[in-house]
């Protein structure tokens, strides 16, 4: 468990943040640029001081201003992947990777070979850092941080300085780290797509304050998100299990809640876990079981809440069997369909508007855990 509660004033800006991350897990620190995410991560790493507060990782108190405890960064065992990689220019890739490893405590849970394998660093070993592309630099930076055998890994927008193509190239490696290693991670981002793909938990930040936190599914429904990502990006992220592949269409059938969705996605084994994003604006709500339609995905459920989104539209939360999804429809539609909590409805969504990502919850994996 990483627990953080800190305050820091920087001129007129006040950072007042508190959150808890169950470990292992990947927590996304999400908010607009300039909301204090980087400041907060720097305090967790110990690179910035806090005016007041505490930071604790499992049993280790890293900062407690009341008890005058401040563990310097070099003794915190927190790996840090910076936005600009910060590779040492006077060393080869291999020397960069070994820098933290040499200084790590005796108990090691990940070896150079393992890290090189996970991040495909083998061919880069003998290169000088200025011969690396942006994506390669970030992979080396991740490897270097991991090899310092950290009890926590901080990633401060590691993809922000890369173009879209490079980002797609590096992102799978982040997913690999999440799925293969049981290191808790704090991932700073202002890109909600990244958050949805990577995180298990989300902390929302707005102008220096942590305004909400929770699991990704729950947080994807948080209305506080709307002001940050906009109404069009609002939607539910739900966990799904692959039921099988339809041989004729090539689509995979996925169970979400007690319903079933058809997805266009890479073939997956039966039982594989997926994450499916259902954008609120893409959902159609019906009060009768629909028939004779091209829409392949129909999820039946019960309305749990109706909340006003703006002057013209409402957000309807629907329980589809222990899982919530969200539809954004006009107020006129809410009135005509008489949508109130408790009402049974059918949510329709076109297959082409569904996105999914393979996902393995880190908790389900048990590899060697970093020693406390």
């Amino acid at each position, binding site marked *: 468990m990483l627990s953080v509660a800190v305050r820091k004033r920087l001129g007129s800006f006040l950072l007042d943040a508190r959150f808890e991350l169950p470990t292992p897990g990947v927590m996304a620190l999400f908010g607009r640029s300039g909301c204090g995410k980087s400041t907060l991560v720097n305090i967790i790493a110990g690179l910035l001081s806090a005016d007041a507060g505490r930071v604790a990782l499992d049993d280790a108190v890293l900062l407690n201003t009341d008890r005058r405890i401040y563990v310097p960064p*070099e003794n915190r065992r*927190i790996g840090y992947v910076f936005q600009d990689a910060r590779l040492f220019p006077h060393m080869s890739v291999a020397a960069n990777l070994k820098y933290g490893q040499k200084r790590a405590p005796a108990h090691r849970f990940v070896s150079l070979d393992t890290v090189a394998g996970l991040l495909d660093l083998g061919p880069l070993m003998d290169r000088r850092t*200025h011969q690396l592309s942006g994506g390669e630099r970030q992979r080396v930076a991740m490897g270097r941080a991991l090899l310092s055998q950290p009890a926590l890994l901080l990633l401060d927008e590691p993809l922000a300085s890369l173009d879209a193509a490079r980002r797609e190239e590096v992102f799978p490696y982040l997913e690999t780290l999440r799925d293969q290693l049981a290191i808790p991670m704090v991932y700073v981002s202002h890109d909600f797509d990244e958050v949805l793909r990577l995180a298990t938990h989300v902390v929302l930040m707005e102008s220096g304050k942590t305004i909400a936190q929770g699991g990704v599914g729950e947080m994807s429904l948080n209305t506080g998100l709307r002001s940050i990502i906009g109404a069009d990006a609002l939607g539910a992220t739900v966990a799904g299990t692959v039921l099988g592949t339809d041989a004729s269409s090539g689509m995979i059938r996925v169970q979400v809640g007690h319903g079933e969705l058809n997805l266009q996605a890479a073939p997956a084994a039966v039982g594989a876990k997926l994450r499916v994003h259902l954008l609120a604006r893409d959902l159609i709500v019906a009060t009768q079981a629909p028939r004779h339609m091209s829409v392949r995905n129909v999820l039946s459920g019960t309305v749990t809440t109706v909340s006003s989104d703006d002057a013209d539209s409402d957000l309807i939360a629907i329980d589809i069997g222990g899982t919530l999804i969200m539809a954004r429809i006009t107020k006129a539609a809410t009135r005509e369909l008489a949508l109130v909590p408790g009402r049974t409805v059918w949510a329709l969504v076109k297959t082409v508007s569904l996105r999914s990502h393979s996902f393995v919850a880190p908790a389900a994996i048990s590899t060697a855990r970093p020693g406390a």
Partner: protein
Amino acid sequence: MMWLSPSEAEALHLSLSVAARSVIVSLPLAVLMAWVLTRRRFLGHTLLDAFVHLPLVLPPVVVGYLLLLLFGTRGPIGSWLERVFGIELIFTRNGAALATAVMSFPLMVRAMRISLENVDRGLEQAARTLGAGAIDRFATITLPLMLPGVLAGAITAFSAALGEFGAVITFVSNIPGETRTLPLALYTALQMPGGDVAAARLACMSLVLGLGGLLLSEWFARRVRRLLGR
């Protein structure tokens, strides 16, 4: 060196020896001073900075005179050094090295400061998160990255030490074989009737040395830059 006369060879050897001692002693101090002046903010920072730069603006004779006061046989530091370590500075080549070190110290510190200011502090932070303590960080990150400045400073200071005149002659006098370096030998030659040729030869030697130093410094800088991939 068959084309040099014994006294010329002696002056050249002495110059190189004095300059080398001066650089070796002042190098670590200059690195420390550059670091303190660049990275630390404290009361008296401006004063210390000015103090280090003083030899650049003071007449060298004044520096020599002050050294005489402090490091002379009856000076507070000089007498202590002699009593405790048996080190005699006045009228010796070690004294000449001290005088040249003081004179070239600001040049050295300046070159190092410029390159230290260009060292990305983010890299030191990264080293910190990887478990490197203060001295470790300095030795493995900061120092290698400021190496171009350290080398440039050392070579500049070495070249300047070869040519230091006023402070040396004031502090340790002009003793053949002990403190008569190239510029002092040149000055002596000029004082003697018919010494024109000897003076010209010594001037040429100084010219070659100076040029050689500058070229060497440039070559080093280029090599280091290539090593750092810039």
